């Protein structure tokens, strides 16, 4: 029974798939995606911006209020990826919404893709496109040429906007093509998505939470650095994992994310003052 209820929760009640997003819908979403980080914050990161960008699609697809609410709630969950490549995920997810996939499956795909695209995007844009275009621009500017900033902006933004809009349409097409199949087999697909999704979350925990102790115990001639001599040898990244699990446990105990954010600030500042973090 619990499972029946649950099933209801994760399925849209209106399963009709007659709505199709138009090119201009997708373009509107791509424009809105410029605001992905408008309300960036530590609790949900890009969630509200993501939802804002997805809004044109969701509004058109879910004509039943009940379904719209289900969808909005899910899209307000934690989200973070690269702000350029995000449109690829948007396209795919829009197609999945259109085909009324199970909510759990949609969430699984969101989580499974956001991590890798974040990493790839950081490498491609922040570590490649930016230094190249800014390097050219800066070298012109240093010689006093006004062409510097202009060349930089043109170079950078041609790539930027072609990708932002192109990936939206490409993601949508990919989604439409490959989603029909996925839906037949909801349970299995959402299982597969959970497998990738949770692997990625595990990887994100070890990659993106920065927490190391600087504690060094000096004992006469001996000196033991807790991080490098003990933790790194038995379980590197134990502190990030521990902290994530602590947050998880507190959330389950009913603490609000806000409280956790406050605590994190206190621990961070306190740890610095005590010299142990």
């Amino acid at each position, binding site marked *: 029974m619990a499972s029946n209820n649950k099933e209801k929760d994760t399925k849209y009640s209106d399963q009709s798939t007659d709505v199709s997003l138009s090119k201009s819908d997708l373009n509107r979403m791509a424009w809105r995606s410029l605001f992905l980080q408008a309300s960036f914050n530590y609790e949900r990161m890009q969630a509200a911006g993501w939802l804002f960008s997805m809004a044109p699609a969701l509004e058109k697809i879910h004509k039943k209020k009940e379904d719209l609410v289900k969808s909005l709630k899910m899209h307000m969950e934690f989200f973070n990826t690269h702000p350029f490549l995000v449109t690829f995920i948007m396209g795919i997810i829009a197609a999945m919404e259109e085909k009324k996939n199970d909510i759990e499956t949609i969430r699984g795909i969101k989580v499974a893709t956001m991590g890798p695209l974040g990493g790839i995007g950081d490498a491609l844009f922040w570590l490649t496109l930016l230094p190249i275009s800014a390097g050219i621009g800066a070298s012109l500017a240093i010689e006093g040429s006004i062409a510097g*900033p202009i060349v930089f902006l043109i170079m950078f933004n041609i790539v930027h906007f072609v990708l932002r809009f192109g990936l939206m349409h490409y993601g949508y097409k990919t989604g439409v093509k490959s989603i029909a199949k996925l839906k037949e087999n909801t349970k299995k697909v959402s299982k597969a998505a959970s497998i990738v999704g949770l692997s990625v979350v595990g990887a994100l925990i070890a990659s993106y939470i920065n927490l190391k102790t600087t504690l060094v115990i000096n004992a006469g001639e001996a000196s033991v650095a807790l991080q490098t001599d003990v933790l790194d040898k038995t379980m590197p990244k134990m502190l990030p994992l521990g902290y994530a699990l602590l947050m998880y446990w507190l959330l389950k105990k009913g603490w609000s994310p806000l409280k956790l*954010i406050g605590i994190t600030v206190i621990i961070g500042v306190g740890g610095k003052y005590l010299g142990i973090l």
Partner: protein
Amino acid sequence: MLTEALLIALWAGIAGIDLFNGLTHIHRPVVTGLVVGIILGDVQKGLVTGGMLELVWMGMAPLAGAQPPNVVIGGIIGAAFAILTNQDPSVAVGVAVPFAVAAQAGITLLFTAFSPVMHKADEFAEEGNLKGIAKINYFGISILFVSYFIVAFLPVYFGADAAEAMVGMLPQTFIDGLSLAGGMMPAIGFALLLKIMLKKEYAGFLILGFVLVAYLELPILAVALLGTSIALYDYFINKSNDQTPPGNKEVITDGI
């Protein structure tokens, strides 16, 4: 001086938005140098200083919410200082960096302070109120604008020395602590995800992903590929099994 300070602050507000939204990168020093140069009437010096500050910030990348010294404030203060005090561009860098670091700490506070607003967003979601969601985002942008406006206005209007004295009042340890807290923050987002996604049945994969990165230092993409390879195995090869008696499926979902 007021007009110039206001114009520069206006530009800082716009550039501050662009740093996180739009991302057309008009916020980079190489562009800001030109703009500040025009405002303060020394385009040449602005260009040269902007170019040099660009090189300083090159490679400080904003990865996963981690914040390098703020490039917008750094670029603007650096360029303005170089022109106003008629100093050598390379000296400008020394002045720009402490402001940029302080601004970065401020951004951490901002991202912290904006978290509660998400609960308003949850309410709007619950009501199906998409306008509300939009407003929250517009509000976020306004906050960004105002913050950058003020932070850029003060040192230009009151002079770098006075402003620096103000910045100097913030203890370095406090600023460092904020930046450290910023690095820990993603834990909360991941915990929220786990609260939704984690079931006993899949806990093994969380461990898998963690071990692959913690011990083997694989990039996320490699973990996603390995996860996909397991998911494919599970999907196709165990296929026949799960399709058999429909009754059994319940067992999986009800879980232990």
